């Protein structure tokens, strides 16, 4: 019996590692070990006002900060009986487009691409792919800018509030966003070209199941009231517990999810598989050109999916900015009740995020947050095990197997810090 370890998984957020246990020629187990300590956010917010909760929960993550903010707002507004004004809704769509560009640009160009081009990191890529590294920084800067314009700050902006926005973006800022988004489209097209040209390894391939929100009005988008499952079923977001079925495992500070006793995947690939036919523009053309049945089996395709989705976000930013400009600034909607419950579901860049709240007498009585990485962990381990088995059977060296496993884990764009906020510690 021997172990093959990746002690510190690089180019992901948070502290995790991979352990492969090998018995003779058989891979007994592959685990993604989460070392990040539990953060207990759900307990922390109990007894807070909904407004205070909204200040705390985005601190779970500095990159999905607006996804957490928006998801919490959706859950809290439902619980408090608030219908947000149209301008608030379209401004929220705008901020999510910005976050998508910001996160997907960093992950595709700088975290995932080095693996496929044979470099240890983006730093090593600089000599040969310096322009692509700069593209990543330009796109990330722009995504950050959209987030700052809509939320008030690049990270942890406090402008989005329950019932609307403290302040809406100015016409000048929106016009600038429109111009810059147009200008950056070629950078996103380059990302698609790069990821479409890669010969993806087949080692992790296996039938997969995907989940994503069902954006309203038969459009592509990052929020919805129902969840599409790639087996053809659909469920109301209020039934999120039946979809995620969380459980604790001994080797991880993050909970795990199974749907009908099987692992599933959330993320950009899930969104394009479930809603890809709703894309338009160049993003639709490029998806049509590069989509094939391997998307349904190979988690590495998530990198290409993120690149296409980033392009769609850039192509849609001008429309979203126009919609915001076309509407007058409404007042912030007030709660219509002090007791209630509600679930929000949004698509963070790395997958579906749920926030559920129960409110009693105007205070948070219970909170439940389920992050994309927590949902993906079982499927990450399943695909890593297949990869290890097949690479070892192919006579690959340990270092090659390690890299193969890291590529699978990284393809999911995991956020380990996010995933470890919710484990309950039991002392016996």
């Amino acid at each position: 019996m021997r172990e093959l370890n990746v002690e510190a998984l690089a180019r992901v957020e948070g502290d995790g590692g991979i352990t492969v246990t090998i018995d003779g020629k058989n891979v007994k187990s592959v685990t993604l070990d989460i070392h990040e300590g539990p953060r207990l956010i759900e307990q922390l917010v109990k007894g807070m006002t909904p407004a205070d909760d909204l200040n705390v929960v985005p601190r779970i993550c500095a990159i999905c900060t607006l996804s957490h903010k928006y998801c919490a707002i959706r859950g809290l507004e439902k619980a408090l009986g608030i219908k947000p004004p149209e301008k608030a809704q379209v401004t929220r769509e705008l901020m999510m487009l910005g976050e998508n560009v910001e996160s997907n640009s960093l992950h595709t160009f700088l975290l995932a691409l080095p693996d496929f081009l044979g470099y240890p990191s983006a730093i090593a890529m600089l000599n040969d792919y310096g322009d692509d590294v700069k593209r990543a920084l330009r796109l990330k800067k722009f995504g950050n800018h959209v987030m700052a314009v809509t939320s008030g700050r690049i990270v942890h902006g406090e402008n989005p509030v329950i019932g609307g926005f403290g302040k809406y973006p100015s016409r000048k800022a929106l016009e600038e966003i429109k111009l810059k988004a147009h200008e950056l489209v070629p950078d996103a097209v380059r990302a698609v070209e790069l990821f479409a040209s890669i010969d993806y390894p087949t080692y992790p391939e296996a039938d997969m199941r995907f989940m994503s929100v069902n954006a309203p009005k038969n459009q592509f988008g990052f929020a919805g009231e129902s969840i599409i499952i790639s087996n053809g079923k659909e469920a109301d977001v209020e039934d999120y517990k039946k979809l995620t079925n969380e459980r604790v495992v001994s080797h991880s500070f993050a909970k795990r999810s199974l749907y009908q006793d099987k692992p599933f995947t959330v993320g950009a690939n899930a969104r394009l598989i479930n809603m890809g036919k709703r894309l338009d523009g160049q993003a639709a053309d490029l998806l049509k050109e590069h989509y094939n049945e391997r998307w349904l089996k190979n988690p590495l395709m998530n990198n290409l999916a993120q690149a296409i989705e980033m392009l769609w976000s850039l192509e849609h930013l001008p429309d979203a900015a126009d919609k915001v400009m076309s509407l007058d600034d409404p007042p912030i909607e007030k709660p219509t009740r002090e007791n209630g419950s509600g679930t929000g579901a949004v698509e963070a860049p790395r997958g579906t995020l749920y926030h559920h709240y129960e409110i009693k007498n105007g205070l948070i009585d219970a909170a439940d947050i389920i992050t994309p990485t927590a949902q993906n962990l079982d499927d990450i381990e399943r695909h890593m095990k297949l990869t290890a088995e097949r690479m070892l059977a192919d006579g690959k060296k340990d270092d090659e197997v390690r890299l193969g496993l890291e590529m699978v884990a990284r393809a999911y764009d995991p956020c380990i810090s996010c995933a470890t906020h919710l484990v309950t510690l039991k002392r016996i």
Partner: protein
Amino acid sequence: MHKLRDAPGDIEEDLRSELEDIAGNGRVYVLGLGNTDRADDGAGVLVAQALKKRFPLFSFSEHDGVEGTVLDISEKKEDAIIIFVDAADLHASPGKIKLVRKADIRDTEITTHRVAVALMASILERADKRAAVLCIQPGRIEFQGKVTRPVLDSIDLTTRVLTTIMKNANS
């Protein structure tokens, strides 16, 4: 009288001398890194915020967008250095300050949250700009904790030294 080594005056003079040495004759930009929600971890941001009042065009922090700031400076047609200021575990007592030059910046990996300083320094180097990291040893990094006294003193000292350097370089 024999001057005690590491007396505050010495630290300040030594740091000023080191910074002047690497700053050369170009513009001096400061980019403060860290998380102000986590006590001493926000030291770099606090230094940058203090300097921003006097040097709004030359001092930036996490709140301005790190990668975009570096990209903008890398594209300027001028001789320049970016001094990143960040809390770092130096295995020293809280408040200890250490200047790390470009050649010694560890080639750490990028995480999901932010591009590594090593990559940003490399991008600057390709654009004929220089970079260094001014590290401050934190004493406490708990969420919503208060900044410790030794780190507050180091923030003040760093701000004083950088004010002198930036005044000379950027006027």
